[in-house]
């Protein structure tokens, strides 16, 4: 059995199991940690698919930055309570799982109809598409063919950071109960 096949069959069950674990965990922090495991498995898949640059970006951006942001917000909000299992809409869980399984079956049928289960990738990928190394080849495509979209993403990042500053700078309400108590005490002192 070739090596990449072995690596794939080790990491595919781990990635599916960690995704299901994320789905089943009632505690948000446990769900986030399962998602980190899943992101690492996806990074390994990128490595098998001859995309080492995306492997590094996946670990730095997703497992590094985005998940730290998630965990930071979970800690900030103190959402360490377990989720209630009460269904506000009756049958929501059954219908949701049915729809999800339906999408999975539909996608697998589409894959079978589209490329079949045995198609392999191009043999010359490393010498033709990845010529001169993946990062060099990717930057060649990115800065020639996709230069305008690349610039547009920088505008998007600036807009996002401005939006976050606007959202975060609302000072009308107290953030914590301690702040609320301090504000109430100050108001009382003023009245007296």
């Amino acid at each position, binding site marked *: 059995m070739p090596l990449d096949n072995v690596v794939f069959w080790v990491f595919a069950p781990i990635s599916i199991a960690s995704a299901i674990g994320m789905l089943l965990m009632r505690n948000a922090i446990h769900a986030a940690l399962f998602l980190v495991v899943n992101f690492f498995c996806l990074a390994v898949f990128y490595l098998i698919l001859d995309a080492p640059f995306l492997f590094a970006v996946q670990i730095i951006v997703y497992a590094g930055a985005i998940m730290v942001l998630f965990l930071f917000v979970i800690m900030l909000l103190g959402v360490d309570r377990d989720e209630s299992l009460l269904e506000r809409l009756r049958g929501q869980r059954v219908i949701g799982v049915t729809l*999800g399984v339906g999408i999975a079956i539909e996608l697998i049928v589409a894959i079978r109809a589209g490329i079949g289960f045995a198609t392999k990738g191009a043999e010359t990928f490393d010498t033709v598409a990845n010529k001169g190394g993946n990062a060099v080849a990717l930057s060649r495509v990115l800065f020639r063919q996709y230069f305008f979209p690349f610039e547009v993403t920088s505008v998007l990042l600036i807009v996002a950071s401005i939006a976050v500053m606007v959202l975060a700078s609302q000072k009308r309400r107290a953030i914590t109960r301690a702040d609320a108590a301090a504000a109430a005490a100050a108001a009382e002192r003023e009245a007296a």
Partner: protein
Amino acid sequence: MSTPISSFLIVSALLFSIGTIGVLVRKNALVIFMSVELQLNAVNLSLVAFSRLHGNLNGQVLAFFSMVVAAAEVVVGLAIIVTVYRRRQSASVDDFTVLRG
């Protein structure tokens, strides 16, 4: 590389469906957001797999762009969740019944 491309696509399809179930079933807004991230990652995997299938790098560039957009989206989404939490003292979507502040 001897693994068929379709195995990656099937893993991607399964991860996408698990993410869909998470969005539909879970109540915690943060966990719903994580499920959306899982769906984005599943689509990224299929983009990279198709890039390998067709022998050019367009799919990888698209996956790269989608990571940038996902980063921006996470930042704005988490800021919105924090803002809503300040108002309602809860992160459960059952408690968000009105859009008015």
